[in-house]
């Protein structure tokens, strides 16, 4: 098992009147190099689950496993673990606190005790990996950047430690179409070229559906589905009943199929949809 959980249960504020069971008996595993999605309606436990994966939360019972080993609660080991499993929170730019982009990205490497030269190298590399121009941006104030650039700086700040797993909680919230596409292109590149394992928690499948190879679905803190993307997305009715929606383009294909057009429905991008519809037309003619 590369990264996953075994019988993970988490209760917030146990033993108080506010005790809330957020996760119950969750077991799954993602493989190295996966582009994985954790989806589920609001309040289903997505954020709680991913915060376990780099040890920010501890299971009430059960285990979190990384590279076949139980994540221990030893402080030193947790610090090492968090270097290898990077976490980008929702709206991460709201946590910016430095005067320059450079300092923002340098925070983690400095904390890890690298010397100035190494820090500089790591910052520049991380900015480049995030699709940003270090020379143009390093001395800028983070708040002067565009919304899309801010989000990328936040990702660079996590990439600065060269993690092997990148976890992102709703990474495209409040970004426009162009920035969303840009961000997903970046993540795809990191996944394909660098072999970075990517785990995204989201309930917005529009862009993510086409990229994911493995999907975990949560429902009220329980594992509702887990498997290859094609298999999970094939269970449209169940997803719909959970309050989840496939991308609009997939819905169009289902709409056509329901009206009797013999069209493929496992379609997640405009280009795939275009091909599938043209395919039907060609078959009609021949």
């Amino acid at each position, binding site marked *: 098992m590369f990264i996953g959980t075994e019988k993970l249960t988490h209760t917030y504020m146990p033993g108080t009147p506010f005790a809330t069971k957020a996760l119950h008996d969750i077991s799954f595993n993602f493989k190295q190099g996966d582009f994985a999605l954790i989806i*589920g309606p609001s309040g*289903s436990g997505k954020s709680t689950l991913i915060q376990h994966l780099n040890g920010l939360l501890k299971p009430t019972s059960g285990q979190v496993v990384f590279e076949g080993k139980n994540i221990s609660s030893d402080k030193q080991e947790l610090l090492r673990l968090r270097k290898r499993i990077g976490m980008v929170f929702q709206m991460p730019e709201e946590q910016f606190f430095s005067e320059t982009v450079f300092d923002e990205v340098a925070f983690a490497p400095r904390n890890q005790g690298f010397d100035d030269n190494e820090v500089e190298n790591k910052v520049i590399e991380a900015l480049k990996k995030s699709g940003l121009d270090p020379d143009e941006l390093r001395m800028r104030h983070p708040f002067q950047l565009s919304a*899309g650039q801010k989000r990328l700086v936040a990702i660079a700040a996590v990439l600065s430690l060269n993690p092997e797993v990148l976890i992102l909680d709703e990474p495209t919230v*409040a970004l426009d179409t*162009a920035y969303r596409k840009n961000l997903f292109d970046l993540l795809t590149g990191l996944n394909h070229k660098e072999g970075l394992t990517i785990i995204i928690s989201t309930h917005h499948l529009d862009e993510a559906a086409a990229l994911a190879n493995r999907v975990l679905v949560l429902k009220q803190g329980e594992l509702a589905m887990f498997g290859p993307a094609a298999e999970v997305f094939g269970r449209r009715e169940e997803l719909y009943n959970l309050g989840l929606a496939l991308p*609009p383009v997939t819905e169009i294909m289902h*709409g056509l199929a329901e009206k009797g057009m013999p069209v493929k429905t496992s379609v997640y991008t405009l280009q795939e*949809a*275009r091909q599938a519809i043209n395919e039907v037309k060609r078959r009609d003619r021949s």
Partner: protein
Amino acid sequence: MAAQPSTIIEAKDVDFYYPGGEDADSSALSGINLTVKQGEYLALVGPNGSGKTTFLKLLNALLIPTHGQVLVKGISTEVESTLPEVRRACGMIFQNPDNQLVATTVEEDIAFGLENLALPPEEIRNRVFKTATLLGLEKLLRQPPHLLSGGEKQRVAIAGVLVMEPECILMDEPTAMLDPAGRCDVLNTVRELNRNRNIAVIHVTHFPEEAAGANRVVVLNEGKLAADGAPVEVMTDLQFLHGLGLQGTTAVELAALLRQDSFPLPPQILYNRELVDSLCSLGQKS
């Protein structure tokens, strides 16, 4: 004879500069003229950084125009003594509900505005309960807001505005953090308030599907008004939208690709259903 819908908001020659950026190039907004009438549902779209949020803040006097004037129900937002009336009439829903929730329980949070009006406790309790029920929050009234999911928090924020019975609701990407079911809930609720109680809505969104559901779409680009029209005019003009880095609805985008492949589709396709129906009727003709 039906009365003309009255004007709720009027922006006259509005320029806005953030402090420190007085030169003409750095205006966040320039030369904005816009009138919003009672009962209108206006979608405000534009790329990140185009001035949408700034404009929204000008409409309930969180910001005051550098030049020009904003009138809410005829009251200028510059006049300090009438600010409470301006802000009651134009309630704001922010992108991130965490920035908006102040109290220790959901009930107190929704009641916050009413308590400031010094209404009798019984009246407050009734109005809070009615609003909470409308938004499906009645079971959460005793919960602390910070323990709710993102979607639930946003509905609490909306309840806090709705309970003040505003004439206009300003929403800054209110569904960005909601799951599809939550999105649907909130949009339906807001649409209902718009239709049944004639509350005007100004809805900033990055989702073309949401903009298509409004009855008027206003596009901002680089601080200027770039378009103002019905969804079927604005959201189908792909040359214009793509030029700004925006997109049409999925149906508009797919229809455009299929027209390139010489599918004779009508020009005003905006919604999924229209595309599905058109494609199916083509199939029957051939």
